[in-house]
Every structure is written in structure tokens, then in C-alpha cells.
């Protein structure tokens, strides 16, 4: 479970070298859309050589592979064979795409987590099955492609984009998988904060980032606030004292879902080092 998933292009040495400096919870090295067709080999080579020599410790790394052509996907899988990565991001995920990927030879990537990038309208008609696929670790919303395929205005104020967000989060949560929101393409902080607010409103666990400067805001805003941590702690302490799943606190009725939510929030805060005694992430 992570807050920020930062895309970095696989053919930019400076970004590869500094991937662990950007403070992202997860790095996604992109071999797909960020790389021009004539630079695919270079990106693949650079990424793999870098990770063999300098893989940062304790940093989950995903690779977004190519999916449109069998030859590109196969070349990617050949290249990442044996590489110490956490998983892959599978573009245009559908059941058919999953089948194509998992059966593609040669590959020994069976232990890798798959994050399904949901960016086609077809995927929404089988979202529950995709989410429940045993290899799927989480679902990511690919807003740009989805917008292109559906003519939906991706502008954050457009209510039409709310449905795919809700559906994706519901499917992920029903399958107990992670739900990760689409990135904000603007590099303006105000637009990003508005986007993150929506990410929270729709219940996503994390958010994609397309620039390192987006990471600190995502990490800050998707982590539980001090006030929320304080409230959750009070609920858990009261629950433990009373030994009951139903009690009142400050004139408000507390019951099981609220207690569970408070515990989840404290777990999350602990994960990000925000509780007293945790190592604080900057």
C-alpha cells in the first residue's frame, strides 16, 4: 500500500540515478508511452543495466512494459528476466491482455506483482474479474487513454469521470486490492492539490505522479493528517477502555465501522512513519 507512484522514463540516466531521492513510495520505470519507438532498445538496456548495478534498497520498483505489439512486450520480458523488481505495470489491462501477458514465453516473471492499468472502456465491463485475478496486486486508472477512448472530458470538474473512478475503487476494494488514481497532468500545485483531494474523496489508496515535484504534495495529502491521527487514536483508546464495539464519544455514536476505520487510519499512519516513535518520512 503506497501513496505515490512516480513514473520516470527508462532512458533518462539522471532520473534513474536519482529515483530514490524523489521520495516516491513506488517508482514506475516507463518503457511504454514515455519512450519513442526508436528509443525502446536504449531505454530497455539502460534501465536493466542501471538496476543490475545500482538498484536502490527498500524502494519498490515497477516497470511499465509495452503491450501493443507482441514483439515489444516479449523484448521487455526478456530484458527484465531475473531483474530485482517488485512488479510490472500492464498497460490496457483486460482479461485478454492478462492472459496474453501471463502466457507469453519466454518469461520467468510469474512471481512479479501485476498492476493493471485500466484505460480502455472494455475493461470496465470485466473490472471485478480483473481485480480478482490472482496475479493482480492493484488497479491503476489511466485517465488520459480512457479519456481518448471514451470522449469523456478528463477535466477534474467533469462529473462524467467520477463513474470510472468509483467503479475502479469499488472493484479493487471488493477484491482487497489497491486502487491507484490517475495522475494530474498539470504541474501547477493548485491543480495537483485539487486532484489529490478527489483521489481521497473517491477512496483511492494512492496516486500516480508524472513529475518528481508532484511527489511531496501527494505524500503529504494522502497521509493521515495530525488531526485525523489524534481522533483515530482517541477512538481506539476509548474502545479498548470500554471493551465495547458501541459507545459514545463527545456526543457521537461510535460503532464497529468507525472503529475499524480508525484502526485502518492508524495502521496507515504507522506505515508512513507518522506515529510517535516512527521514523518520520520527510
Amino acid at each position, binding site marked *: 500500500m503506497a501513496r505515490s507512484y512516480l513514473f520516470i522514463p527508462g532512458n533518462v540516466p539522471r532520473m534513474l540515478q536519482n529515483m530514490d531521492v524523489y521520495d516516491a513510495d513506488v517508482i514506475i520505470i516507463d518503457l511504454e508511452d514515455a519512450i519513442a519507438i526508436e528509443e525502446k532498445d536504449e531505454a530497455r538496456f539502460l534501465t536493466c543495466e542501471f538496476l543490475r548495478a545500482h538498484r536502490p534498497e527498500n524502494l519498490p520498483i515497477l516497470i511499465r512494459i509495452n503491450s501493443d505489439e507482441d514483439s515489444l512486450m516479449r523484448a521487455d520480458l526478456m530484458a527484465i528476466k531475473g531483474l530485482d523488481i517488485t512488479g510490472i505495470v500492464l498497460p490496457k489491462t483486460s482479461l485478454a491482455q492478462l492472459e496474453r501477458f501471463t502466457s507469453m514465453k519466454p518469461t520467468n516473471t510469474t512471481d512479479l506483482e501485476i498492476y493493471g492499468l485500466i484505460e480502455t472502456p472494455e475493461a470496465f465491463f470485466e473490472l471485478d474479474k480483473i481485480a480478482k485475478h490472482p496475479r493482480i496486486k492493484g488497479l491503476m486508472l489511466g485517465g488520459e487513454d480512457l479519456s481518448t477512448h471514451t470522449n469523456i472530458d478528463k477535466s477534474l470538474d467533469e462529473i462524467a469521470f467520477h463513474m470510472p473512478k468509483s467503479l475502479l475503487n469499488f472493484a479493487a476494494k471488493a477484491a482487497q486490492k489497491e486502487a491507484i488514481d490517475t495522475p494530474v497532468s498539470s504541474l501547477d500545485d493548485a491543480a495537483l492539490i485539487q486532484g489529490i483531494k478527489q483521489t481521497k474523496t473517491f477512496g483511492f489508496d494512492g496516486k500516480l505522479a508524472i513529475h518528481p515535484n508532484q511527489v511531496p504534495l501527494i505524500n503529504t495529502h494522502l497521509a493521515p493528517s495530525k488531526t485525523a491521527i489524534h481522533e483515530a487514536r482517541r477512538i481506539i483508546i476509548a474502545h479498548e477502555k470500554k471493551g465495547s464495539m458501541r459507545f459514545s464519544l463527545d456526543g457521537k455514536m461510535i460503532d464497529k465501522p468507525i472503529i475499524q476505520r480508525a484502526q485502518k487510519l492508524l495502521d496507515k499512519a504507522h506505515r508512513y512513519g507518522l506515529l510517535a516513535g516512527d521514523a518520520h518520512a*520527510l
Partner: protein
Amino acid sequence: MRFKNLDALLDALSLHDQMSLSFHHHLRNGDAVLNLVLEAILHRGYKDLNLYPSAIFPIHHTIETAIKEGKIHNITTNYINGPVALALKEKGLKGTLKMQSHGGRARAIIEDENTIDIAFIAAPAVDEKGNASGLEGPSACGSLGYVIEDVKHAKTKVLITDYTVSKLDNPQISSSDIDYLLTVDSIGDASGIMSGTLKPTNDPLNLKIARLSQAFLQASGMIQENVSYQSGAGGTSLAITKMFIETLKNQGLTASFFTGGITAQHVQALEAGLVKDLYDVQCFDLTAIESLRKNKAHHAISASDYANPNNTKRKIKDLDIVILGASEIDYAFNVNVTTDSYHTIIGGSGGHSDTAEDAKLTVVVSPLLKARLSLIKKSVSAITTPGEHIDVLITERGIAINPKRQDLLKRFENSPLPIMTIEALQALAYQFTGIPKPTVKPKKIIGTIESRHGQKLDSLYGK
């Protein structure tokens, strides 16, 4: 005495071989005065000149030519950037090159170590009485802080201007200190003098350094009511200053003063009531100049009142925090901002060693890797600022506290910040760069770096 012709002025001056000439650098890379004057003097055949420009920029090609022709004996300055540095490395001087700090230069002039025969003073505006100011005219540069000691102590003082007005309200230079006035068509190119707006960095690595710096300053306990602060005008420094000012605002604090080079950021903080006074030895942008004209709490100060170590009223004596850069730093925290690893001069102290020595907390910020080399060396190529005056190094990958600051080490003992030894930080850099072969120090010494107190800190080398 007033002149409208440079030759007539030079006829009136008592020129001779081996004379000492000073110039100031407030017009930065837009300065036309140094080239104009020096060229004419060299044309008259004078040789073995001793130059005291407060800084040398790429535009100063006349010095480069004169060095190559062997007409310069000594150069004493605070900063060199551009072709003159290469000429010095290639050819050297008959005499020596001395690199001082801003405070050290002021001290040396006052104490007669830098003896100046003629100070040629580019003056953006002069009034009918002969008073001068940097606040008006097409080449306005704001504060004239670095020239004030030249004006007071040179044997002969010459104002050179391209803009005259009937009366200046608050002149920075008084006509009573001036011997000659020369009016010329232009003293400088405005585009090389001032930046429009200086912006904080947008580079993710430098922003990381800024965030770590801000977190460190916050945790150091130094950000309190009446804190005083100085930083440079580079993108990372501007980002740190922006965060520092936001912290003042968020915590309801007011700083006592900001000093050094002043930018729009400092002015905005002044106008928002977040800092009481600005002590300005050099304006870095147009907003700072405008503020110096209108804000009473924005004061132009001399280099001596800024940083002269023997001036008990110097502002930086009361400085709490200074943010500085480095081109190299070593295990002993010695900092080099004067040369690159090949001993070519790329800058100089400016106020680096002055503020480092005086400030209560001296923070050096820099990317860990520079041009594919580690910032951290076993020993620096040249010592600009001794390590004993540096408290902490902050890079994007970690923070190293100077062991002499046991109080800080103790304070940050259980800090979540990435505190490590400077050697450990270097090891992180070496993971990417490998261990470089040691460079061989050239044999030919062309000059020295001097401490603000006048002692030799290190040598400068030629080819």
C-alpha cells in the same frame, strides 16, 4: 573637477607605471567602465599595473588581454569568472594574484594593505553637486556597498557616470569624497547588470535539498523570533529562503534582519512585516532597487559594515543562519568555491568565508554529484573557507554535521533526517562515480587565497 572626455581626465591624473587602480563590480557583467578606463591607460603605455577590482566578470576582456601582454603586475580581487581566469592559469602574473573576501577586501583597504592610487567608480547617477547614487539612471544597480571603502580610502577618486540629475535625495557617495567626475555615453549594459525576476529552483533534486535544509533549520531550533538570515541568489538558495519565509509566516515570527545580496523575496518579506530590516550590500534584482528607494527599513550598507572582521558594528556579527554553496568540500569541511578540480578559477569567496565565520549556523548546500564527480573530496583543491567555520553540509542524499558541532550532533541524534558522516555521504557518491584518480597539483603557483583577516589560506595554481 569635471570632464566630458576620458583623455582629458587621464591627462589630469598623475598616472605612472605600477599604479594601483580599483573598480567595483555592482554593474556585474554589464560593466563598461573597467574596460573603458583600463584600455585607455594601457593605450598610453603604462605597465606593471596593480588592479583591485572587487570582482571580475567575463565582460572584462581588457584584463585578459593585458595579462596576456604581461602588463599587469598584481591583481587583488574577491571573485573571478570567465576568460580572465583562463588567462591567469595560462600566463600568470609578474607579481601575484590575491583572492580576498568581501569583508577582507574592505578591511585591507581600511588598514592600508590594499593601497589604491586611483578608484574609478562607475556611478549610475550623479547630481550637480557631484553626489552619486546607484538607485537611478539607465544602469541603476541599487546599493553601492562594495565601493564605499574605495571612495573613502583611495588616494584619488573618480566618478564615472552616464546619467546626471539636478539633485539626488539620498546619495550613497558624497561629492566631498570625490576628486574628479567624468561623464561618458554609457557606463554599462542594463541587461548584464540586473535580472528581471530571480526564481526559486524547479529542479527536483535542488528542491529536495531545499526541503531537507528547511527541515534541518526547523529542527535545529534556530528559527525563532528575531532570527537573522542570509542566503545567496541561486535557485536552491531562493527555494530555501522561500520556505524559510513561509515558516516565519506560519509560525507568526518576525526576523530581525536579512543581509547580503537582496532580492524580491527579501523585499516581499519586509513589506509583509516578516522581517524588520534589510541590510543590503548588493541588489540582485529590480524589485530590490525599487525597495531601496522607497522602504525606510531597507538600508544600503558598505562592505565594511557588512563583513569587515575588524569592524565591531558589522552586520553579520549578529547573523544567526547563513546558507552557502560549494564547488568542493572535504573531510575537514573545508569548502572551495574558488576553483574547479583542475585548479581553474571559477569564482571566489565573495562573502562566503565572512559569513561562514560569523554566523551561528553555517549551512552549505549542494548536489552530491557535480559534473559526474563527488562534491566531497578527501581534501579540496583550494580552501576558500576553512572547515572550522562550516557547521553542516546538506545534499539531496544526506546531511553531514561537522564533528566540531557536538551540540548539533547530539540534538540530531535521534532525528528522522538522513544524518550521516561526511565520509558516508562521499561513499554514496562513489557508488555512482567510482573513486576518481587523484589529480596532480600543478607546480606553478600564481597566487593565494587570503582569509578575511589577511592570512594565507591556500595557493592558486597555473598550468
